[in-house]
């Protein structure tokens, strides 16, 4: 029996509701994500991916519908949820006057992780992302890719049950992106962590994701395993499915 860790029912989010600038960011989205899954959220810019993540992590309140994370209602038990989930935001910044290690330890400290444990975890994660040698350098001198690696490590320092990663490999070079992907694979396969991943790199999706959900203009237009979607929409690959659903081009569009 699968263990559902995220569930939404007709989740709707409308910004500036009733005003001239009203925007429907999410429109009755219903989705289920299981423990240990790597779930890819796909969609063009402005499709509602970040809004969905922000609702699930309690940064935004839904206009209508319901959402549960780890069995808890996001509007009721957000503290419980936040202790167990982690977020790597899309435009995540970093404290550049702190060192790589200090960034990790600080973030873990905010979650109340004991000091010794925190440093052990930091050692392990810095090794994993290949920044152990630079751990005592202030981050302000790091390249964009190195900063992104620190951010990935930071998101994992609390050993979350669910990790929301909004474009984790953006700006990272090919080798760095490979490192990040390997970390995510390991998290999923060995530690059974649930990963919600948004990305524009469909190869990454194909490599990492067990299932994907495609959002377009706030609507969830498709959910399933990449191979199932390809079969369902009679497409050669996931890109064709995506393009067909979002722009009307390709096999599905025809």
């Amino acid at each position, binding site marked *: 029996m699968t263990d559902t860790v995220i569930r939404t029912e007709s989740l709707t989010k409308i*910004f500036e509701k009733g005003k001239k600038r009203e925007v429907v960011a999410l429109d009755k989205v219903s989705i289920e994500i299981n423990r240990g899954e790597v779930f890819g959220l796909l969609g063009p810019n402005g499709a509602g991916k970040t809004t969905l993540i*922000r609702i699930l*992590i*309690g*940064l*935004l*309140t839904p206009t209508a519908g319901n959402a549960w994370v780890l069995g808890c209602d996001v509007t009721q038990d957000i*503290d419980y949820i*936040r*202790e167990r*989930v*982690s*977020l*790597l*935001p899309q*435009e*995540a*910044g*970093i*404290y*550049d*006057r*702190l060192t790589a290690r*200090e960034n990790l330890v*600080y*973030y873990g*400290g*905010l*979650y109340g992780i004991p000091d010794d444990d925190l440093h052990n975890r930091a050692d392990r994660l810095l090794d994993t992302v290949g920044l152990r040698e630079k751990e005592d350098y*202030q981050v302000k001198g790091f390249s964009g890719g190195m900063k992104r690696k620190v951010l990935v490590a*930071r998101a994992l320092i609390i050993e979350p049950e669910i990790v929301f990663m909004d474009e984790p490999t953006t700006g990272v070079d090919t080798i760095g992106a490979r490192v990040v992907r390997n970390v995510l694979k390991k998290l999923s396969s060995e530690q059974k962590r649930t990963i919600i991943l948004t990305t524009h790199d469909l190869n990454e999706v194909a490599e990492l994701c067990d299932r994907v959900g495609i959002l377009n203009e706030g609507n969830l237009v498709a959910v399933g395993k990449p191979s199932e979607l390809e079969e369902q929409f009679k497409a050669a690959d996931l890109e064709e499915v995506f393009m067909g659903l979002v722009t009307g081009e390709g096999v599905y569009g025809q």
Partner: protein
Amino acid sequence: MIWLIKKEVKSLFRSRWLIFGLIVSPLFAWMFEGAFLSFVVAQTSAEPETVYITLDDEGIWGNTLYSAIESEMDTLLIEQLLNVTRSEGDNMVANRTLSVWVLIPENFTQELEAANRSTLVVWVNTGNFRATAAAQRIDAFAKQVINEIVIIRDLRVDWYTITPEATYGHSLAVFLVMIVSVMAPSPYVGQSFAGEREKHTLEALLVVPMSRVSILIAKLIAGLVLTMLYSIFTVIGILIYNWSIVVRAVGLPPEVMDYYINLYTVNSSAIPLIFFCQLLILICAISIGIVVSSLARDQATAESINNLILLIPTMVIGILGFTGSILQYGGVFGVFVLAIPFSHAILFLNGVLSGVATPASLLGNVLYMLAFAMVFLVIGAKLFEREAIIA
């Protein structure tokens, strides 16, 4: 919360320019004031002054001295030598309206001839640099006149000073401490919230299992820890300023020197009080800054708005503090002045230094400032809870 405070303090202490500013601004303010005062004294000491004189002595020496002063008015930089009666002089002393009053007493010649020693009385307003310099010149000149004529005779000049309502040092401390304390946290509060948003670190901070109020309080505490550095250097600045006054006072007659030092220096026993008052001002200024920072889009905007909001009322009450009690104003303006939390810092400090405040009024001032800070923190927390802060 401790982790957040530690991170804030650590980050800020690595911001060299911010730290430089917090160290230099109080030192500069006080050292500049010391140097400025020296400059003003040097300038005004060479300007002519009106001198009031009373000749009660009918003997030869009183007349000799009077005539000598009258004939050397240009040398002594006396603009006008105005004759006044003793009662007129006493009235001017009582009303604090005179600059220098030279009183040649009734028995001046008699004492000089009987005991080779007599006393000339000089009243001076030491709050007036020109008057102090004029009194010094008359002191030296009178001794020269009497001692040159009859070498064994000795003239003593007794100086009396007119006490102002509050010492200059005291008024200055209130003004400078308030102005600079209000402005000091601005760069910190600017970067603490608007800066987090600008650097895209806010979102990750808001998803940690901490209440927003805790985040605000942690930022407030970190700001206070940081600005303590500023407070410490304020104390050092005050000590340097006091030292510059003492150096300048050397050369004045001993009794005048004591008075002069007392007038212009900041009383050392008041320093802990100034420290406490500064803390209250900082709490209020940071609380206001937090609200501004929660609303502002970026750090530069936050700092600009913060400075704009704080500078005008602070300047108004800072200048009012120099003109007398800020409680003297009535009507809408009086209410406006009292609504400004920093007014209560001035009232508190003035009340304690002058010894006229009741414990209830002092407590009222402290509570007003704390309540003001609390209200702003609650407003800040509400603003912080808005979705708009992210969306």
